């Protein structure tokens, strides 16, 4: 089957699964709305749908359209950002352990957010104070890693990863320090670091939307180059790829997309690591499939995880980052076991 056909078919199937996941997630929650009612509210809102007189209260409509749908939209967008960024990072770093946080975005964002909270400045610039601080400090951390790893105008992959590990350890210590100094009963910093989509609105989803919408085609444009790079940087260079430029551009684009997601959701782990691996395991090593399917797959993964997070121990919320790792870590262990058994050998 030709590649464009395969991309369309599999992306279509994945989008269908995403739509089903969204509707399923919309139908469950603590308010105890019957699924049928949720569906009527949704259909009623569709343009040109017309339909019967509403048999639900304005309150119920608000729960579905404002509370649940905005949160699910944010889950899709955050998951998509982390999935495509994970594919980008793995594509240019050619390391099976690379994920969107490898170069320190998450640690950087955590320091920014924690600092703002420790100083009690959460609302100094309105509701966007913490996200802006997190976004900026995340980017600063990555620039520091890129500078650290750069020599002679080139960035060796090993040096990049090592620089990321060093900076993460350093910044992680800062965050731990601020958590331990905090005197709050319920620790805000800890809650932010663990990731959560609760108490978010459509505004948050709209903030992440442009990053996801622009990031996907941008990263996907480098898919062929990343395919060649999986043969080694020299091979790619001899086939006409600008290796250093590709590395830098894909890393920066993936970082921007990740920083946008992290700044509103906190540190949601494992999505960007596990989803591209799963896609690769099922659909093979071609990044022209891996990039778009990782974006959609990331959306599906986070929608499911967040639905569990808000319903499993209701009315208590499980932090989203805890859930993605609780599900993701055993999966990753299984992946390693499979690789050890020689069944899933990949480009490493």
């Amino acid at each position: 089957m030709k590649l464009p056909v395969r991309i369309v078919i599999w992306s279509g199937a994945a989008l269908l699964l995403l739509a089903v996941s969204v509707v399923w997630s919309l139908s469950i929650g603590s308010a105890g709305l019957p699924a049928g009612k949720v569906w009527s509210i949704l259909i009623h809102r569709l343009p040109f749908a017309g339909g019967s007189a509403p048999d639900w209260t304005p309150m119920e409509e608000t729960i579905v359209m404002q509370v649940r749908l905005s949160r699910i939209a944010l889950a899709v967008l955050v998951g998509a950002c982390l999935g495509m960024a994970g594919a980008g990072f793995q594509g240019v770093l050619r390391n099976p352990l690379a994920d969107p946080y490898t170069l320190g975005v998450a640690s950087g964002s955590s320091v920014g957010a924690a600092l703002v909270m420790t100083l009690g400045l959460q609302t100094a610039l309105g509701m966007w104070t913490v996200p802006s601080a997190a976004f900026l400090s995340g980017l600063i951390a990555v620039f520091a890693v890129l500078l650290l790893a750069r020599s002679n105008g080139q960035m060796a992959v090993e040096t990049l990863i090592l620089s990321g590990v060093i900076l993460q350890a350093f910044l992680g210590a800062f965050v731990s320090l601020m958590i331990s100094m905090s005197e709050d009963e319920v620790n805000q910093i800890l809650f932010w670091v663990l990731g959560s989509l609760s108490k978010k609105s459509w505004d948050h989803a709209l903030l992440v939307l442009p990053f996801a919408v622009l990031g996907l085609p941008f990263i996907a444009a480098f898919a062929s180059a990343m395919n060649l790079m999986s043969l080694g940087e020299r091979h790619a260079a001899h086939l006409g790829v600008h290796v250093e430029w590709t590395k830098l551009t894909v890393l920066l684009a993936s970082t921007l997309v990740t920083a946008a997601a992290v700044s509103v959701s906190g540190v949601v782990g494992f999505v960007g690591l596990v989803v591209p691996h799963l896609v690769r395991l099922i659909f093979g090593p071609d990044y022209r499939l891996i990039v778009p399917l990782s974006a959609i797959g990331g959306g599906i993964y986070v929608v499911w995880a967040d639905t569990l997070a808000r319903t499993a121990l209701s009315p208590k919320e499980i932090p989203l980052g805890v859930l993605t790792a609780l599900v993701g870590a055993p999966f990753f262990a299984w992946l390693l076991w499979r690789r050890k058994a020689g069944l899933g050998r990949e480009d490493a």
Partner: protein
Amino acid sequence: MIEVDGLTIEAGGRRILDGVSFRLEAGGWYGIIGPNGAGKSTLLAAISGVRRFDAGSVRLFGRPVGSWPRRALARRLAVLQQELLPRTAFTVREVVLMGRYPYQNWFGGSDEEGEVLVDRVIGTLGLSAHAHRRLDTLSGGERQRVALAKAMAQDPELLLLDEPTTYLDIGYQIHLLDLVRDWRRAGNRTVVAVLHDLNLAAQYCDRLLVLREGRLIAEGPPADVLKPETIRRVFGIEPVVLPHPASGVPQLLLKPGGPDAKPAERRTADTASR
């Protein structure tokens, strides 16, 4: 086709290449020989445009190598590396098709003649039975043949080989070089090969360039270059050089050094024979 002038490359305070100059015409098979660390691979990397140099110039097809857009260059120049292709999950055909990257758009679909060429190359190299096997199921020799197929799929005028037979047994070595020879003749292409094995170099190359400590110290047909005296000067060994019984090109027989070797005597003998 290749004009190298005063090429100098330094790394870590050491001159890897020191003022190398030569000119290669289109259509021949040129061999670069010399001991380890002589700068052979570095020279090849500089010619292919992936290695920056400190002084001198390299011109390819009449233009400075640095001024070539990478994609345009990849349509005229291909490189077969010493390192084998990694064990990826891509299939043989997918990897050979990557050789068409410099001709392709994003989907890789607009290149109809490329598809035909790729299938022909796969057939020529005897890979048809493996076309849909994953690279991680192939042996080292088979993967090197895939790498050669990928380079041929680029349809280049100039092919650079960097010690392509290092990890291959003698059967695969001869087979691979035969394939390159036939392909070169059929398309009147140019091959520049770094080769470790002087006997193979003598049999396949029209001319040899000898590098030692970053300098070009000899250049010419194998019969002129592969003389005991040159080999002693370059490699520090005492060889016996005989004409090949079939083709007449010079071939080397090696003998161990040590107490039995009497260099002084032999030098006298060589001088006398000259």
